[in-house]
């Protein structure tokens, strides 16, 4: 694949997740005229989270489509376009608004390939922002990963840094099924959403590359306890691991990276080694991703655990607007540290 422009002497680049994801989208759109992007504020504004900056100029209004505030409408348009042979990318800036898209996603995009006996594919990628921690209250701070993960027919990836963001976006765009690429708002790399989380920015190669679905990633090796997370909780877990190291506790940080299909082998390999597990997730605790991780352990080898598992997640409350209340409810490094210490005291 020819480089689009001469590289700057081969110097390595540190990119934000928004820029890295966009690089993959642009590369794929240049190759395949069937790919188009549709969503709110993506053409003129370049996306609320900077996901499509500059793309309307390059690809035009037919391929970078601004919509009214009408998620039901444009997810239906995209689903139908995908069934007719196009490869749409739908941007939903806030996952909270997925509720008005459930019919198109759950009953059409996720099921049409199966129900048509393979006659119709739905090669649609959704690009979704999620998460809280910046006082945007209950209807603008949710994760809803557990909700989306629950229905068969959907692949969901949650890159936690810019390197993974680009590789997973290439994989999503080349896949012929419904794929959802989700980024926690605090790690897009936008100054107005809070202080930069340095561990979310990463060296990103200029060339194209893919990262397969269903492969977790160990960010930090350890021997005493496994800290499982995804998205923002990878970064909380990394901070927690540093604090635990100061107490002489060696924590392994496992990034699920793909929620569906989940890398259950990686979970078991790590937990078998350490014997202790903390699962951190900003989503609601009940019936969600944390439960799925623990179900995996319980089914495959409950004896791997030397102590009860501990989950750190939203304690099943609407995300508060008040800053101290929101900070109380959502996971953070200190809560993960406390959970890890609890597994070692059991």
């Amino acid at each position, binding site marked *: 694949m020819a480089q689009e*422009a*001469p590289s*700057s*002497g*081969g*110097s*390595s*680049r*540190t*990119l*934000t997740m*928004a*820029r890295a994801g966009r690089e993959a989208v642009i590369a794929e759109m240049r190759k395949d005229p069937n790919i188009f992007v549709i969503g709110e504020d993506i053409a003129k504004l370049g996306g609320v989270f*900077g996901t499509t900056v500059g793309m309307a100029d390059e690809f035009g209004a037919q391929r970078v489509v601004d919509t009214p505030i009408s998620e039901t409408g444009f997810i239906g348009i995209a689903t139908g376009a995908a069934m007719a042979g196009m490869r749409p990318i739908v941007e939903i800036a806030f996952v909270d608004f997925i509720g008005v898209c459930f019919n198109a996603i759950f009953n059409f995009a996720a099921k049409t390939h199966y129900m048509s006996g393979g006659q119709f594919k739905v090669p649609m990628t959704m690009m979704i922002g999620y998460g809280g921690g910046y006082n945007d209250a209950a209807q603008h701070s949710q994760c809803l990963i557990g909700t989306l993960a629950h229905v068969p027919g959907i692949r969901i990836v949650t890159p936690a840094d810019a390197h993974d963001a680009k590789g997973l976006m290439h994989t999503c765009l080349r896949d012929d099924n419904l794929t959802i690429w989700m980024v926690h708002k605090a790690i897009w*790399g*936008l*100054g*107005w959403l809070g*202080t*930069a989380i*340095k561990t979310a*920015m990463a060296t990103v190669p200029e060339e194209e590359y893919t990262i397969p679905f269903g492969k977790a990633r160990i960010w930090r090796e350890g021997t005493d306890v496994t800290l499982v997370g995804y998205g923002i909780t990878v970064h909380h877990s990394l901070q927690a691991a540093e604090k635990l190291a100061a107490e002489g506790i060696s924590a392994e940080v496992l990034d699920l990276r793909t929620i569906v299909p989940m890398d259950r082998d990686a979970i078991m390999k790590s937990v078998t080694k350490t014997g202790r597990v903390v699962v951190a997730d900003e989503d609601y605790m009940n019936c969600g991703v944390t439960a799925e991780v623990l179900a995996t352990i319980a089914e495959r080898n409950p004896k791997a655990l030397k102590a009860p598992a501990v989950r750190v997640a939203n304690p099943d409350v609407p995300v508060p607007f008040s800053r101290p209340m929101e900070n109380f409810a959502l996971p953070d490094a200190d809560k993960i540290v406390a959970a890890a210490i609890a597994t070692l005291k059991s």
Partner: protein
Amino acid sequence: MIDITVPQDLWDTEDEGVIFVWIYADGALVEQGKLIAELTVEKAQLELTAPASGRLKILAPAETIVRKGTVIGRIEPP
């Protein structure tokens, strides 16, 4: 050698901005016109490009608060 100055036309107001990220490391070879840093001003993420080709010298690290006209680095001979 040429200074990397926050351009006067990078944003409209007189608000302060902050350097969000340097794309390249101190000492890296960079190319004129290519993106070398991102700045945050109010709710916008802005792009800063290299004024010349050469070796990047970072004077103001990420998280430094800047104004239009602030010198934040230099391009030195390769």
